[in-house]
């Protein structure tokens, strides 16, 4: 294992997050089985006291879980010079077979952590722990992913050896290689642009409708979930090309480098934040009938929709701005 400060930070933090999430998930099983707000039993009162503490601690850990996705990518990017053939994070992630599965799980746990934080925030706004079961159920679902991610990440870091010749992004995201990435890279740009802008438009319209009229929460949540993979595919297919100004360079990671003004970080942050908050609108919808949340929940959902829309708009404006005001033209190649 390389004793890089970021690797050590990721290693230690994921260990702590996994242990805390596991503990909280076990506690969640007790909550699901024995929680009874009408009871004044010793167990119930102990559960009420402890859930406050556990939720607060888990909340802080999961905020770091969100940050750790970016730290992981930044780390992979910053150590790429140690591997022969690597030009960006792609090279580091392909040094062994655990890089991409770790990244995939990091994205999944980002979503789950974000949704849990939304549930926890909303639960804390109600006087009778209205979402406590849903909150801990989600934590029980998230715990295996968090642990698996920690194990994979640890294995990935432990198996990093500098003498391995790895692949550069040009090879992986080229139109001639095989795999999903290359298929997306090889997809014709105009249909991909139509799919991307169509998806953004429909999601934006659904979000605006919810924000203005309070209707269509499930639709907006679903479309937010759909717009994430579509946007990632668009990044690989054509968005990144406008930033690189190269018709054959489809890497979604080089955009994170200094050469391109680190513009990838705000783009991915906007995309992920917009998706999580959009999904959160749909996630909260079934709880609108809870008495203690009746007055609070519409406001929370409206704020989430506003954040999601804002992220979506800024993301679209940045990429469109680049596409319109650069001298590079993709069509014709």
């Amino acid at each position, binding site marked *: 294992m390389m004793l890089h400060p970021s690797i050590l930070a990721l290693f230690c933090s994921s260990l702590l997050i996994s242990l805390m999430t596991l503990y909280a998930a076990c506690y969640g099983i007790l909550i699901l089985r024995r929680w009874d*707000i009408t009871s*004044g*039993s*010793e167990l119930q*009162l102990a559960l009420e*006291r402890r859930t*406050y503490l556990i939720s607060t601690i888990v909340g802080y850990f999961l905020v770091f879980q969100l940050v750790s996705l970016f730290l992981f990518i930044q780390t992979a990017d910053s150590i790429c010079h140690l591997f022969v053939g690597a030009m960006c994070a792609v090279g580091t992630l392909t040094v062994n077979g655990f890089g991409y599965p770790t990244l995939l799980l990091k994205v999944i746990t980002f979503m789950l952590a974000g949704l849990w934080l939304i549930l926890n925030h909303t639960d*804390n706004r109600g*006087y*009778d722990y209205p979402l406590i079961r849903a909150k801990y159920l989600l934590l029980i679902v998230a715990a295996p992913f968090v642990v698996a991610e920690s194990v994979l990440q640890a294995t990935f870091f432990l198996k990093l050896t500098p003498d391995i010749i790895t692949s550069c992004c040009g090879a992986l995201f080229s139109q001639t290689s095989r795999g999903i990435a290359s298929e997306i890279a090889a997809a014709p740009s105009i249909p991909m642009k139509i799919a991307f802008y169509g998806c953004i438009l429909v999601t934006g319209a659904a979000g605006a409708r919810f924000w203005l009229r309070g209707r269509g929460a499930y639709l907006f949540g679903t479309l937010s979930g759909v717009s994430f993979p579509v946007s990632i595919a668009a990044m690989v297919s054509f968005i990144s090309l406008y930033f690189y100004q190269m018709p054959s360079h489809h890497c979604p990671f080089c955009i994170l480098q200094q050469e391109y003004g680190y513009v990838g970080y705000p783009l991915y942050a906007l995309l992920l934040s917009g998706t999580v908050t959009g999904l959160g609108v749909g996630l909260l919808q079934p709880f609108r009938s809870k008495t203690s949340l009746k007055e609070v929940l519409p406001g929370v959902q409206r704020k989430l929709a506003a954040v999601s829309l804002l992220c979506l708009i800024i993301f679209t404006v940045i990429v469109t701005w680049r596409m319109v005001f650069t001298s590079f033209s993709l069509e014709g190649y």
Partner: protein
Amino acid sequence: MISARDISKVFNAGRPSEFTALNGVSLDLRLHETTVLKGPSGSGKTTLLALMGCMSRPSTGRIFLKDREITSLPERFLTEVRRSTFGFVFQQFNLIKGISALENVMAPAYPTGEKFSLLRARALASLEMFNLGKRADAKVEWLSGGEAQRVAIARALINNPAVIIADEPTAHLDTRLAHEFIGIMAQLKARGTTIILASHDPIVYDSDLADRVVEMRDGQVIGAGNRA
């Protein structure tokens, strides 16, 4: 109505020093009345006051304030109930040393966000009500026992609470000051304030102020009766 249902409070549970301060207490206290909890030291009076005033949570049982169950409330809601409903007068007064009487009276209202000038005017008026207007800027360590207690009462009233809770309020007062305290409480009672006192001082529980006396011993209620 403030109702306690099967309340127990165990300190240091599971340790050798485990102590049961309250054991299965059930009690109904009517609003706009004065209730005195009477009993020797260690009978559980202070613990019961703390639980009813939302200052601590029971080990078992529930407490209802006007039919609203308050023991399960998350801390942020409990703080709001405590701030808006209860005013506390502690046995040792618990005034903050180093700041003036006026600042002590204003302190519990700071989190409400009330405009400072309005709050200051209310606090001064409250001190004037207890003839302490001239002592408003005096540091609390310079006050006599009677003055300190009146400042403590003024502080308890600053958020216009519906319920005043006082724990052994006459423990450090001579007979004259104890009667003065009873007089102040009688004024508050006449204004409709609910008063809950814990005391083993006959001046308090034998006074006309008390509508109801609840007798406690060893963490249990052993008798409760209305006074004629």
